[in-house]
């Protein structure tokens, strides 16, 4: 995968998370009673959604990380050229 494609993937994954996080806030703001419902195993939506956000973050991070393994060295930039000599 090339660098622009990686950037695009990062944006897609970021947007997915942003939607989920936004959804969590919107439900809390406008439909707080929904958070008290217990959709599965007697555990309420607030806990499911909260855990879901944490697990999603971990899964998205892994997807992003593994997308580099096929082209491992390609994306690594030249950091010595762009960094600055501050001590001069």
């Amino acid at each position: 995968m090339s660098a622009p494609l990686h950037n695009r993937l990062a944006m897609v994954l970021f947007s997915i998370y942003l939607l989920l996080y936004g959804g969590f806030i919107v439900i809390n703001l406008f439909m707080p009673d929904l958070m008290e419902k217990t959709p599965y195993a007697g555990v309420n939506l607030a806990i499911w959604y909260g855990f879901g956000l944490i697990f999603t973050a971990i899964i998205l991070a892994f997807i992003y990380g593994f997308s580099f393994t096929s082209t491992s060295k390609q994306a690594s930039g030249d950091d010595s050229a762009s960094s600055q000599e501050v001590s001069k």
Partner: protein
Amino acid sequence: MIYEPSVLAVVVFFAFVGVTLGLSFWLGGKAKTSEGYFSAHGQIPWFINGVAFAGDYLSAASFLGICGMIAFYGYDGFLYSIGYLAGWIVALFIVAEPMKRLGKFTFADALNSKFNSPGIQITAGVSTLVVSIFYLIPQMVGAGVLVTPLLGFPHWVGVVIVGVTVILIVVSAGMVSTTWVQFLKGSLLVIFSAILTIMLMARGFETKEGGADGYEFRTLGPFTTKTLEADLGTDPETEKWSVVAVDSVWEETPFVRLKNEQGTVTVWKKEEDAAGKFLLTEAQSLTKTADGKVLVNGLPKGSRKGEPELHPVGHISKLPEGKTETGPLGLLTFFSTLQNSEVILWPKTKVAELDGSSTTVYYQKPTHGSQVLRPGEHPRFKGIRSNKTKDKLNFLSLMLALFCGTASLPHILIRYYTVKDEAAARKSTIVGIVTIGFFYILSLYMGLGAMVSGALDVTNSNMAAPLLARSIAEWMFAAISAIAFTTVLGTVSGLILASAGAVTHDLMGHLFKVKMNDAQQVRIAKLSSVVVGVIAIVLGILFENMNVSYLVGWAFSVAASANLPSLIMLLFWSKTTKQGIIAALIVGMVSSLGWILLSEDTFTQVYGLLAEDAWMPFSQPGIVTIPLGFLTLIVVSLMTQPKKSVAE
């Protein structure tokens, strides 16, 4: 509560601090150059750095504050866990790789990479210093909070111990030892939290009438209002008791004060039923008399075990299906059982009495499990259940600041310079997310476990996690307290190092135009570490009574408003100019700080003024000041486009 220092706790504690310091001095030999001092030569392996991220990030506020908030209010503390973790998504997908690519030592380097402007370097340096110092205050307060019960020292001694230890760590070796301390602490925190959670599950729930000291809180009645005194006489236990006359202050409260045959006054809460009858449930009271004495439940507060003290609290009063204990619980049955139980929470009310003394009453509030596990019970999150727009904006604003703040915290950002390349920066962020996410999941179990452990100190929510550990085993208490203390050490050393970097590189080099060779830079950095460390000690003592997580909220808001707009726009908008960045930094910093200083929370908690007098409509600035930072950058950049590009 009275805390007696336990020998085991003290030994484990000093062993931790000793190992940490020893490691620092040993590693200190490896960092002689400024590159070594500030960025560990970029040689830290990505996995170590990733766990060190968790070490940096899981500060006293995360560990002590969140567990405490969940233990006293339920689910709401977990909203912080969710928000703090969400911020890492911004760090991973947007900030991590460019930060590594553009900078060398500090956040200011990255912002300034395109422009080489002393103005950017200086403003970003000041912003780093401001955010770091704000973040330092709660860490130092947390240190004092921990040391008091653990070792029996006063608050200021705890703050001084942390301050001095951290200065030693930072001065001895800089980023290398700081990173290893963070790695050590991050791993231990997660491992021991997992062990604590497993032990908690194995113990399960049981119904009780009181806390871990075996004291059972009493309920009197039912009474009718008119004949309370006569009714007391019918019970052999209370026949010689009398009702203390109600004055204008107590009349406003739901409490009744009773005096027993020895003349001791205790406070009880009235619980009325539909038939107009009422019960009295035993409350706890802490009175500070006008002449400086402290009374606990009407008796002078003791200093040793067995003498009068507030009872530890937090229990389940009813389990589902009338059970009295559950036996071991699973990861989901833990919640589903709690969902259908009844828990006794302990809110407090302060009563300023007419004779100049002040009494804090802690009273029992039987609360259904479903209410404990839903968001919106804590006053800070009242926006969830309120119909007022300003409360809703306040909630939205806080969640936004948490989301945007992480990737703008200087002590997190400098950790990107300790690894060798962008790939390592990315990988260590992923390790950080996994470690931190796992810990935050545990935080909900630990907080709720503490809530019903019977071990809570009503006066100090920050002690919930260590006290939960104590309710399970003494060695666990020793370990968790020592880890919590190293948590503070680690985060404080990271912050001091970030500040020292800002002073040395951004301010000395650009503002005062001091030319320094490598050894001089390290010397200046060490000197500024000492100065910042001393400032932190002083502030930690001054802000003793401030709520830890509230102070962290400040730092997040200021970091997000000042730093994030410049960072994002520099990466994604080619028309960004140096004037735009400088303006956005200043406007973001000044507006968010100003907003906080003029907000309701600060008026009531810091100045002791009335909430109605606050100038700002709600307390959390983020939703206004973060967009303001972006807007400032765009407008100023458009006004200051270089002539060449206009001509083209």
